[in-house]
């Protein structure tokens, strides 16, 4: 079974005819030239900063000038820093809620879009549009709607909590962020669900129909279990993406009111201007470890089938 090596991604290529007997054949030098540019640039642009970040997290550097090792002080301070704890609490809560909203909506839309409907390609094309629009720009558009149109509608309908801008409400600003993030993230999730639904053979439904199953029963007892793998992929990919939230929040609330909606990414970036460079490096390192753990869970859960 291919999956014993964890994944198709990690499955070695099938032995090539010429690879067998001359396994130790000499590699043509030109292959090194093909590979080298990618490896070198990647090491400089990704690996070096990653190592540097971890290194500086153990120092008291402020981004320039002299520094010395301070051990784990940054990490200790981090775990008792209300600003950082708040950003973790907010980001994880926001990511969890958004994942649920995005997956429920995308799944239902995918069921609709794979049923027998009119204007199938047209409707599908419309639902995918949000994926191609810049997060910060659509956030500015919604910013206007939330600050002007929604309160206007709210007050004319006599709904008090809607008659003021959601974005200025410390308890509800996160709702606006969930809405816009979901608006943008649904298309990608939707397309994956469509692929999943199309992989279900039609005869299972015919069988269910003959046995007298209702449409709802068929959806919950047949469709859902059969696309379970796709649900797992979408939930993990989505959760990872939402943990990195930045653009949309900057465009909607810029972390406000106060620091109520400041994400982890936004907090890390304050190290650039705020003088606590090494301290936020420690924050970034912790965030990195969390990302790795989630990625390992992802690899296990999907046996490497998901790549993003």
């Amino acid at each position, binding site marked *: 079974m291919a999956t014993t090596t964890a994944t*198709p*991604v990690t499955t*070695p290529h099938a*032995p*090539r005819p010429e*690879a067998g007997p001359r396994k130790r054949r000499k590699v043509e030098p030109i*292959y090194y030239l*093909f*590979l080298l*540019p*990618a*490896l070198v*640039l*990647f090491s400089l*642009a*990704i690996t070096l900063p990653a190592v540097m*970040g971890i290194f500086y997290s153990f120092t008291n550097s402020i981004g320039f000038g002299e520094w010395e090792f301070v051990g784990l002080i940054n990490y200790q301070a981090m775990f008792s820093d209300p600003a950082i704890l708040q950003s973790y609490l907010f980001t994880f809560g926001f990511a969890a809620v958004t994942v649920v909203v995005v997956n429920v909506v995308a799944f239902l*839309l995918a069921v*609709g*879009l794979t049923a*027998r*409907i*009119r204007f199938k390609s047209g*409707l*599908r094309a419309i639902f*995918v*549009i949000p*994926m*191609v629009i*810049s*997060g*910060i*720009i*659509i956030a*500015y558009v919604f910013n*206007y*709607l939330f600050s002007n*149109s929604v309160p206007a509608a709210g007050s004319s309908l006599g709904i008090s909590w809607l008659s003021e801008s959601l974005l200025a409400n410390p308890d509800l600003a996160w709702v606006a962020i969930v809405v816009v993030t979901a608006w943008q993230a649904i298309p990608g999730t939707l*397309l*994956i669900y*469509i*692929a999943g639904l*199309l992989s279900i*053979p039609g005869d299972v439904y015919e069988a269910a*129909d003959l046995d007298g199953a209702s449409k709802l029963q068929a959806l919950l007892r047949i469709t859902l279990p059969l696309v379970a793998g796709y649900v797992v992929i*979408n939930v993990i990919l989505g959760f990872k993406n939402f943990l990195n939230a*930045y653009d949309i929040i900057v*465009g909607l609330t810029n972390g406000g009111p106060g620091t109520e909606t400041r994400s982890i990414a936004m907090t*890390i*970036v304050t190290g*650039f201007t705020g003088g606590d*460079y090494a301290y936020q490096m420690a924050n*970034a*390192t912790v965030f*990195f470890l969390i990302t790795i753990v989630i*990625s390992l869970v992802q690899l296990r859960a999907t*046996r490497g*089938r998901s*790549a*993003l």
Partner: protein
Amino acid sequence: MSTQPALVSENVQAIENLEGGPARGGSFRGRRIGGDSWTTTFLLALCSLTVLIPLYVTIAMAFKTTEQAVEGSAFSLPAPFSIDGFREAWSLTDFPRAFTISLLVTAGTVFGTIILAAFASYAISRNWERRLFRYSFFYLLAAMFIPFPVLALAQIRLTGLAGLDNPAGVTLLHIMFQLSFSVLLFTAFLRSIPMELEESARIDGASTWQTFWHLIFPLLAPMSATVGIFAFLASWNDFMMPSLITSDPSLQTLPVVQSIFQTQFSNNYNVSFASYLMAMAPAIIVYIFTQRWVMAGVTQGAVKG
């Protein structure tokens, strides 16, 4: 367990089936033998308004006069129809400059990603039995699990030191963050190309370079299109990276320019929305012409196997 390439193409096939409009005979998806469901169609059309209304508001606001944009409802039609918003946004944000920078960064990212990833993937997939190449594959893939915020602070510092705190540095970083995903797609595709093809080229005396450039690279075209479109969307729409890496505000890309001028737009909503519209239009236009690849690419990228 089937092999990966077969299923990838199955997904593409599935997407293409869907493209074929209302399902006809032979399709197993129709659960109603009687014909298309108008109720579902109607409900979906209703849902699609959540996508269309924000876009409609953007377009409508952009064509209003400042007066109407400030006074009226967001949903009213422009009356009179005015392009003053575009005129002012054009000169206020120096649109031609920001557009050119966005275009250069995006074109550089698309081109660089395809070339670097295709060459590396070819070397990896044809020397899989060598440890160096095999490990390089996993090394490049690892970046898929490192988001930009983790590296941001160090990358800001390093690009500054290297004199790359400009659009060129942003382009380089955009390419690097696209590399993992692209190498994954290319190597999967390369595995599905029969070796006999290459062997016959070799027998005809073609060198490795000639084989790759004249035979394999053209065959990779569909995958290059997918890789290119994803690089395009990621690069064109990105805000976080250019806003942090590029130090000179006059060298910023379109999304960042929107945030820089956010305060200067103040209540001239027609100007701000005209500016937003000009910034998002190119991506929407590209999407309209490349829908098929965009949709296939999402599925290929996320569902392997």
